[in-house]
């Protein structure tokens, strides 16, 4: 899963000769493909932007448990239930790596979680859409994890060492997730009429939100130049979206499904698929909190946190008692 870049640094890229010595040395290292490590000097903007991006990514993994968790108790076979459990467990694990990567930048996980729970921090808009039939478990793996992989594979080359290393590990698991999603879709599209209808319904609902995962069109996100220069962002939103459509359209055809975009077709001149824009007005409404599930997702996380306070406090108190006893 991946948190889309919506608002970047807002900074304009300085030419090398206008930078301070420290800034210039930093940029030279990045240009040379070196990794930046936690104790290295870094510009404030770089640090802040990374904290936001990594924590949004972590929050997406954590909230991303909910739409799939919605079907764990209704998985149709023991094998499907086991696979889905393993997948959601992976997502929670990704959340942990990412929070840990963010902590190397001097923030605390508790503060990051408070920002998520208060609604201050964002997570990927995709998780504010509901999962309404079993084929959604296929479509989420295939489309949502598929879209995430496009971004995350690129992010393995990101300049910040801990983030890059987390991505390497996460990508391995995500490709398993996408494959299991496609496997569910194959089973559904080769199944009964009702199963085919579920598969088409899932594609119809999740296609546009999946395209939105790459963020607004490049023309509307002019601030990403600094993130690109710092190699926090590796490809533009439109590049990622095109790559995703190019890899997914043949799969849709293979499955015998119809993409809910009558303009989507291979352009023989460019070798890429043409396709329509998603409804960006809807995208910005979801970001503002008006998606179909924003309120429910945040409510679920807040309830889990509040009702779990006694558990966390109990463990801390025990640890404190042991510490005192040892002294």
């Amino acid at each position, binding site marked *: 899963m991946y948190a889309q870049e919506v608002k970047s640094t807002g900074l304009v890229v300085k030419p090398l000769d206008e930078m301070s010595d420290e800034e210039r040395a930093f940029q030279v290292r990045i240009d040379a493909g070196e990794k930046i490590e936690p104790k290295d000097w870094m510009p404030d903007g770089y640090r802040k932007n990374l904290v936001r991006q990594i924590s949004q990514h972590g929050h997406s993994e954590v909230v991303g448990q909910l739409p799939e968790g919605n079907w764990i108790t*209704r998985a*149709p*076979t023991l094998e499907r239930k086991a696979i889905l459990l393993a997948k959601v467990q992976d997502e929670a694990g990704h959340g942990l790596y990412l929070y840990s990567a963010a902590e190397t930048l001097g923030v605390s996980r508790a503060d990051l979680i408070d920002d998520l729970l208060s609604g201050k921090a964002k997570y990927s808009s995709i998780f504010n859409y509901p999962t309404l039939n079993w084929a959604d478990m296929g479509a989420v793996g295939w489309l949502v994890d598929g879209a995430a992989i496009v971004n995350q594979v690129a992010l393995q080359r990101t300049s910040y060492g801990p983030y890059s290393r987390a991505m390497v590990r996460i990508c391995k698991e995500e490709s398993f997730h996408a494959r299991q999603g496609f496997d569910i879709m194959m089973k559904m599209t080769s199944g009964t009429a009702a199963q085919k209808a579920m598969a088409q319904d899932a594609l119809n609902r999740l296609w546009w939100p999946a395209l939105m995962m790459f963020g607004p069109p490049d023309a509307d996100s002019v601030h990403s130049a600094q993130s690109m220069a710092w190699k926090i962002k590796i490809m533009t939103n439109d590049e990622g979206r095109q790559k995703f459509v190019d890899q997914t359209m043949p799969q849709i055809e293979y499955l015998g499904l119809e993409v809910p975009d009558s303009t989507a077709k291979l352009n023989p001149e460019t070798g890429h698929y043409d396709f329509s824009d998603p409804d960006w007005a809807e995208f910005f409404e979801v970001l503002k909190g008006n998606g179909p599930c924003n309120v429910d997702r945040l409510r679920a996380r807040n309830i889990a946190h509040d009702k779990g306070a006694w558990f966390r406090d*109990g*463990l801390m108190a025990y640890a404190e008692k042991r510490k005192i006893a040892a002294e």
Partner: protein
Amino acid sequence: MFEFLLRMGDNTLVLGHRVSEWCGHAPVLEEDIALANISLDLIGQTRLWLGLAGEVEGQGRDADALAFRRDVWDFRNLLICERPNRDFGHTLMRQFLFDLWHFERLSDLSLSVDDRIAGIAAKCVKEADYHLERSKDLIVRLGDGTVESHSKMQTALTALWPYIGEMFTDDALDAKMADAGIAPLPSSQHVRFHKALNETLAAATLMRPTNDFAQMGGRSGTHTEDLGHMLATMQFLQRAYPDARW
């Protein structure tokens, strides 16, 4: 034998399902991961027990048919497995009491004269050992944590106490299994279970309830009201689309 295997497989199926209900709602991320892991183990064990049950029955039913196409009265799990999650304290206490019983049971079954049962038990006991280590540790830490965590764990223990007795009550089927050397009598675990339980409760500063009344029925198919609701959710797709393959 079929009935005996259902007793083993239904325990892990029903408890595994209950634990999976927590997904995404646990008090802390590490617990989300741990619970998914435990549920995953229990569902994996279910596939082994119910798979063998289907084979032994010889009527063409596989583990999925047994899990998703039987009604409440055909389930043979201990009642404690189907008790609702309530709060996290209940969930942990239920897990601990089950793990303590389960670990001992699987250890015994790994010595069964039936190689298939011994094989499954030997595989599952490693997981059960780890589950017990984790649940015991949490019971101790929360029992001896804050006043509130102590009170939550004590409440959970009291609520679940009547469901322990069923674990050690022998019936005619148990006697047959014991005579055949397949599985020792459930009552033979009683002393070991309570010795280990007392040690953990003492470390956790929890009081052992004095009421010895036992709720019975799960192992012969008379369940609590909760199991029907669980099956309605769990079996929905298989029941609504009986011709589909998933």
